[in-house]
């Protein structure tokens, strides 16, 4: 492991409140998702359909991208294209300046985080108001999101209370979560109405209408995209669906997998700017279509990952994410989907630790609503890392040693017979609190004492007893 990753993981594992905070939110999410799935007998067939819809789009990406562009232009939208994160940010900053914007509101978008839009706006001197409650918390804390659905999941209510008391204009009592939410509502209310530009992402780009779809539970997306003069959308090109009807099938999967609800409170299709006589809505509607590595994924064996709906189920179920949280991953996307995407975005040398920070237990693939084979893709990065010579020397040596022994059964058996009693020497009442050469494990948790005999010896003994 690289030193930076080790430091982030150690910080996470020794954080006194992080694990509790993670468990409160992800535990809740797992239970609600399980109930929603149990209430849908054909969930498996629906996942197959979700996979097939997204694959169909990937296989016809040029067709649907052109159709979306044509229909969006016809609706009065303005389309912009960005090859890279920097190009996308430059376009958004230029549009904000053209609009003479001093203040922009922003509804949470993972693509926006991916391209570094919050930073780009700040660098351009444009006041940015995050409107999703969790992003608001993260912005006040000068922090980074740690989950793709619940960005402030690492904050406890006590930490939020302290921050709101210092930074909100009319914090009020703040003695309950309800009071904290009410304080944020007061704080952001006027800012929604005063913004010059509203920026959102898109959960879907609907090819046959040119509309973009947003989903929120708070209603902040529509309050971000309706009052300002200009609405800017940043979206990855993989978000396409053929039609509104196809979006419905994916919405059923997305929302259940994310929060266990059947539909988010607010699901909105935005098509073009306000019509001439409309009572409200933005006069300008811009859509920035971003590649940022997606076309490369098509040719590098990662096309399955382009199905990802960003529901967060793989994070909520990942045994590693649940221990170390989102910040330890160091990229925009944490958890299993982050372990696959971050090497695309940041390069494998920088993100090499993420595919290794995985037990390959397969839970992520089991819960993925569009059946992305995440463990297979993670193994693909490990293979590449090996081929590029990025694997740490200690790991390659240990694996060579293991292979040498494993291909010589007699030697392997002798080795385990000798190792077992040694390991047992360190254990007290079933657990070892410290082991030589294994402080990475025992620093944070105990190691189970091994059985008295190796598996093979136990089998042999049982056969002998039976005979």
């Amino acid at each position: 492991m690289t030193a930076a990753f080790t430091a982030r993981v150690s910080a996470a594992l020794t954080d006194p409140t992080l694990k509790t905070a993670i468990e409160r939110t992800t535990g809740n999410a797992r239970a609600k998702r399980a109930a929603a799935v149990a209430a849908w007998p054909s969930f498996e067939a629906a996942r197959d359909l979700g996979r097939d819809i997204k694959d169909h789009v990937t296989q016809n990406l040029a067709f649907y991208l052109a159709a979306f562009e044509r229909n969006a232009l016809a609706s009065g939208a303005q389309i912009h294209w960005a090859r890279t994160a920097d190009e996308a940010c430059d376009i958004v900053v230029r549009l904000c300046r053209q609009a003479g914007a001093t203040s922009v509101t922003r509804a949470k978008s993972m693509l926006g985080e991916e391209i570094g839009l919050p930073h780009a706006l700040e660098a351009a001197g444009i006041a940015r108001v995050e409107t999703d409650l969790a992003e608001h918390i993260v912005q006040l804390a000068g922090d980074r999101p740690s989950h793709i659905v619940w960005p402030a999941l690492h904050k406890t209510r006590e930490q939020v209370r302290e921050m709101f008391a210092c930074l909100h204009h009319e914090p009020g009592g703040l003695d309950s979560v309800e009071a904290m939410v009410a304080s944020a509502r007061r704080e952001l209310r006027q800012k929604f109405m005063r913004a010059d530009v509203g920026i959102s992402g898109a959960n879907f780009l609907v090819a046959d209408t040119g509309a973009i779809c947003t989903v929120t539970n708070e209603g902040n997306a529509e309050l971000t995209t309706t009052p300002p003069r200009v609405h800017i959308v940043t979206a990855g090109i993989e978000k396409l669906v053929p039609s509104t009807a196809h979006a419905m099938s994916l919405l059923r999967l997305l929302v259940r997998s994310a929060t266990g609800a059947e539909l988010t409170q607010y699901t909105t299709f935005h098509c073009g700017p306000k019509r001439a006589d409309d009572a409200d809505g933005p006069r300008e509607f811009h859509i920035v279509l971003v590649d940022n590595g997606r076309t490369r994924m098509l040719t590098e064996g990662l096309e399955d990952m382009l199905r990802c709906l960003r529901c967060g189920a793989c994070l909520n179920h990942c045994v590693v994410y649940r221990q170390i949280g989102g910040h330890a991953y160091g990229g925009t996307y944490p958890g299993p989907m982050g372990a696959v995407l971050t090497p695309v975005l940041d390069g494998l040398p920088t993100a090499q630790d993420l595919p290794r920070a995985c037990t390959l237990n397969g839970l992520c693939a089991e819960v993925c609503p569009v059946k992305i084979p995440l463990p297979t893709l993670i193994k693909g990065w490990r293979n590449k890392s090996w081929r590029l010579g990025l694997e740490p020397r200690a790991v390659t040596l240990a694996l060579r040693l293991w292979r040498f022994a494993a291909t010589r059964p007699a030697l392997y058996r002798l080795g385990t017979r000798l190792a077992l009693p040694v390991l047992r020497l360190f254990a007290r009442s079933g657990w070892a609190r410290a082991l030589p050469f294994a402080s990475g494990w025992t620093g944070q948790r105990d190691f189970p004492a091994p059985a008295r005999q190796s598996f093979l010896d136990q089998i042999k003994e049982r056969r002998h007893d039976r005979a």
Partner: protein
Amino acid sequence: MTARDDIFAALPRAAGTAPHAEAAALLARVPALRPARVGPDQVASFLERLTGPVIAATATRLATRAEIPAAVRAYLAANTLGPQIALQPTQALQTLDWSGLTPHPTIAVDEPVSVCEADYAVAETASLVFRSSPHMPTLFAFLPLHHIVVLEAARIVPWLEDAAALEAARPAPRNLNFVTGASGTTDIEGTLVRGAHGPAHLHVLLIGGQMPAPAPQPANVP
């Protein structure tokens, strides 16, 4: 090369024919695998979901549209709210008898109550659908604390695909809003709180349809 050219050049060549048949074949699989959420009585299914523990909205059934103002007055009284209401600027609503209330056709940032009519609703998810227009300002569904929604029972469709079909048959509005319950957030420790930025309360006035039968009287025991 522009960014657009580069992105298209990096994509596999589009097939000669448009992939419409394949896209349609995908949708043909939907009816067999939808969640079994809608019974033979769509209105009952809609109401059950709307007022169930997840969405937790409230509803009043009315026989005719003329009863709307009285139902609004009753709601305001029950929630100790003043007589000011932001009333959606449609003729059908504005021409009702609102005596005792002070309706206005615009909406303020801290509006306590708005009354507007849903274009239609979806039974599967108990979603109310609003289409932005000169007569439907989008913010009427997002700014008020209490959102009172008028819905004709005949305008409930069973599935989300039915909504998509209705929309495919007419020009898209700027905003097509599916509203499924009051605004909520679970962003602080996963605790659900209503009224995050949008309405904290959603109340539906359902007009017409088969009214529920009166509660059965206990049978006379001879």
